[in-house]
């Protein structure tokens, strides 16, 4: 499946901003089942400096700075992506989760050594004992890792309530565990905290989800949104994604932007600005299917 994603972020400031530095995780990475066919970021006002580099996790990071006085900032990322479905093995045939952990410490296996960072606590995901105990219920001894993780995902889906009003970007894992409510980012953090508490390598995925309008209705512009889920390393298969918000193993409708230890590693857009006072933020995301061939080079404005 091919998609065109348009992600517009607009800041409006109460006072003029004289200088602004930003970094964006907005260009989709390449994965086993996702190809980025082209991606551009437009920044208005025109940035004095704009550069791209690859971060520790292999994500594409864009730095830009605006040095002219401005009252509003608009960042538009437009990307064409081709996603292929994920072929899952039979869950019961995957190795026991304890065995999967042992494999992380195989000597000389670069993939495994690099994955071990995802077993450690990270700035936004401490090893919360409640989250660990919660996960442990799904991880009975010797249970195949895929089976256990699917079970955990299902439990979060049914036992936690989706409630955008209940949390912010900085709500700690422990609080979400206590209240049993949150948004996709919180659900991913909870699952990851629990998995890491057990010793399993789990990482945070940020991206988009294609939504389809109710039958017979036209899709609204800007109705899609950024999304987040988690991913677990399964020996001999690789990283497998799990979306606890929708109780799904992402197939063709999940588009990955970036991966990291937690939200902080992959924040879509962050910045430091001088002046500005208070500001208003509007975000609009559109995920559209591309029927025809995409144009690999999109014209910059």
């Amino acid at each position, binding site marked *: 499946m091919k998609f065109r994603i348009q992600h517009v*972020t607009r*800041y409006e400031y109460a006072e003029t901003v*004289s*200088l602004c*530095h*930003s*970094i964006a995780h907005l260009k989709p990475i390449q994965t086993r089942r996702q190809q980025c066919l082209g991606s551009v970021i437009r920044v208005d006002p025109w940035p*004095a*400096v704009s*550069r791209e*580099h*690859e*971060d*520790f996790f292999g994500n594409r990071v864009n*730095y830009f*700075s605006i*040095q002219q006085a401005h009252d509003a900032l608009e960042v538009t990322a437009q990307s064409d992506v081709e996603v292929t479905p994920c072929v899952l093995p039979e869950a019961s045939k995957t190795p026991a989760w304890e065995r999967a952990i042992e494999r992380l410490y195989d*000597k*000389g296996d*670069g993939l495994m*050594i*690099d994955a*071990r*960072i995802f*077993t*450690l*606590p990270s700035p936004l995901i401490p090893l919360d004992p409640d989250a660990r105990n919660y996960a442990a219920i799904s991880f009975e001894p010797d249970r195949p890792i895929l089976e256990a993780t699917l079970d955990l995902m299902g439990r979060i889906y049914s036992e936690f309530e*989706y409630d*955008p009003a209940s949390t*912010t*970007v900085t709500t700690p894992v422990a609080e979400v565990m206590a209240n049993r409510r949150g*948004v*996709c*980012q919180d659900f991913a953090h909870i699952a990851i905290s629990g998995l890491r508490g057990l010793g399993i390598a789990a990482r945070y995925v940020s991206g988009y*989800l294609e*939504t389809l309008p109710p039958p017979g209705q036209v899709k609204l512009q800007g109705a*899609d*949104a*950024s*999304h*987040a889920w988690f991913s677990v390393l399964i020996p001999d298969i690789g990283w497998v994604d799990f979306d606890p*918000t*929708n109780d799904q193993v992402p197939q063709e409708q999940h588009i990955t932007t970036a991966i990291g230890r937690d939200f902080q*590693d992959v*924040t*879509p*857009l*962050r*910045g*430091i*600005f*001088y*002046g*500005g006072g208070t*500001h208003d*933020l509007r*975000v609009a*995301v559109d995920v559209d299917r591309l029927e025809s061939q995409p144009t690999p080079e999109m014209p910059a404005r």
Partner: protein
Amino acid sequence: MSVPDLAPTLESSGLVDAYTPLADCFDEMRTAEGEVRPHWQYLLDALRTLGPTGIEARWREASRLIRDNGVTYNLNGDPRGMSRPWELDLLPLLIRSEEWAELERGLIQRAELFNLILADLYGPRELLRLGLIPAELIDGDPGYLLPCHGIDVSGARPLVHYAADLTRTPDGRWRVIGDRAQSPLGAGYALENRVVLSRVLPSLFRDSHVHRLAGFFRSMRRTLTRLAPHHGEDPRVVLLTPGPQNEAYFEHAYLANYLGYTLVQGADLSVRDGALWLRTLGRLERIDAVLRRLDDSWCDPLELREDSLLGVPGLVQAVRTGNLVLANALGSGILEHPALMAFLPGICQHLLGETLALPDIPTWWCGDPEARGHVLEHLDRLTIRPCIRSLKQTPLFPAAMEPTARAALIEAIKRNPSAYIAQERIQPSTTPALIGQHLEPRPSVLRAFLIAEEEGYAVMPGGLGRVASSHDATLLSTQLGGLGKDVWVLASEPERQESLLPSAELLAPAVVKESAVSSRVADNLFWIGRYAERAEGLVRLLRITIFKFSERGDFALSKANASCLRSLLEALTNQTQTFPGFIGEGAEERLRDPVPELLSLISDRSRVGGLPRTLEALGQAAYSVRDRLSADTWRIISDIDRLVASLSEHPPSQLSQALDELDPLVTSLVAFSGLSQENMTHNEGWHFLETGRRLERGTATASLLQSMLVPVSGEQDENMVIEAVLGITDSLITYRRRYRGGTRIGALLDLVLQDEGNPRALAYQFAVLSKLVSDLPRGDLSMGRTPAEKLVLKSLTGIRLAEINALIQVEGQEPRREVLARMLADLDTELAALSDAITAQYFRHEEQPHSLLRRTGTMQP
């Protein structure tokens, strides 16, 4: 061991007989058999020759130098805070050349090794893939800065500056007990120790053929010049400090001065066009290299610690782009991870194909299950250290712990094993320290410094020695507590005297460029001028008031005297803004007995507007720009500091006593203004200092005249008032010479208001201000007069056009000089507006940078 009660003094023939090294540890001076090591003999002989009084005198001299130079180290928790003086032992630590050469080889190997580790960790991470370092040790440590991974650091040695803490095990072998790889502290203190010791023990120093230190700092400068990406001929290097609150701010200012670099704080800098710039008055100057004294995670709120206000947003990107070099490279803090020590031998074999020449203390990282088992089994033989690097962390000794604390520690290790290391307990070597009149063996640590040169690392021939302030070696922790020691590496041949200044071919062009004045520096200089003048004016007014008060003798005050004294007291309250004082509520009572209020203005630290507060503010402003002040100026600031401290620690109980304290203060303050006039280059910075001074003097004079001359008293009283005003404004002699008769008040106003040749007159202040403000940098306002210029012109013209005869007219029921009052009030308002205009034009610091809200968009259900 305790100090023996009847320890023989140095005077006795057995200078070292009483010197008993502690059991089971290596002593630098005495062998286990009790022999004095030969290379100490010369020093001991010299001490004997000096005798107790000589030693005492040298020690005093050293303390005085340290105090005068304002050498401070703000040890955590020390009540003296910022002004805790550096403590130096008179005895150097002596090391023979041959032994030093061997130590040097070990240190160089270690620096090379750490440099390779640094390059690997932020590049290919081969050491992790090969299992030579456990991945968790690095990836789980907050010192490993993920955003810095993959940055191509310029030069072969991103570890530019490195230091190791060393001690000796009982067998006499040197061992490393700690590594400093962020921004190693102490090279400046080592240099200052040397400066002091070579001055107080000149002949001993000369005859001992001690290796010189200047070459090391020359290397440092050469290296930074070489590493800086070139934009034109002379790269600009700055020294980045967290600011005057930092415990080692003295060293930052000292090194900046010595190396010829501008001392900057994060707020002075800005990233634009992907490069780093210094914000000076009205323009930006490009920075090519930064010698940082700010821990790496604080350097950039955009990519590193978001809550850092000390860094510069975009700094990491400037480095990534290759427009800037930082020494040390960002991320080098990971090398200070104490658990690395456990893995160094293997890494050394792998990376260098050599065995580790300078071994560490045997170390175990509890994150490794096998090591953890060993640690828990042999707990009482070990020292436990948390891996978190913090000044407050101290090593733990399980053997000496209470059972509950010990059990809690075991629990903590089991719960979070990777957060702890264990090391074999070692008895650090001891070195003689002069305690009182005796030599005593004290546990000691040597910090050695290295700098990367083009071909390899160079070691400072010497270093920073530290001895514990008691026999307890545990106090020699990460902070630079204890007594400092100079370290003398004894050369076999005498060396040529060197300093940084001469020898043209070695002088990098960058250092001759005068360092730029940032807004922050200008702001501080402006306030130094204001506070210094304010303090001086206040002391003069206090003195005259006290004289007047004590003149009454045993008799009741004459009416004239009383009214003059009252005016003076009111002037004091007005000038210090310490209401109600002698003006507001309760004034009558205080006027009847002014002594407590006067004493409070002189010695009460909590009194805003009082003398101690004003002088403290002066000291703080001076401290913030201490790299801009000459050694002589600094000495005066130190003197003033001491006088303030003694004033508030021993507050005078009588006015006569207070008077004695005020006299030296006037002398110091006058010396300060003299030095700033005569010894400071009249550059941009000086212009701000002088502007502050003139502004303040103008304000004080206007306020004084308002209090003294506006109310009218009888003719007899007026003589007394005139005399007092002349005394305060230091114009008595001129007045007597010039005006033998005539209307007295008119003559006085001519002299202190309109005379542009009298440095204490109001007109003079405005005439000077007019010149000063037109010389200040103009920025964008190149057309026409700046707001400041207009204000000064208006006031000066007003004074020049004023008619003395109109000013002295008396009006009203309660007779007052209303015209004069209005004019003085206007001048006061105009001066305040001028101060605001200058502040707005030059000191308006950029707004604090803010972080964008990060949640972008609602999340999908």
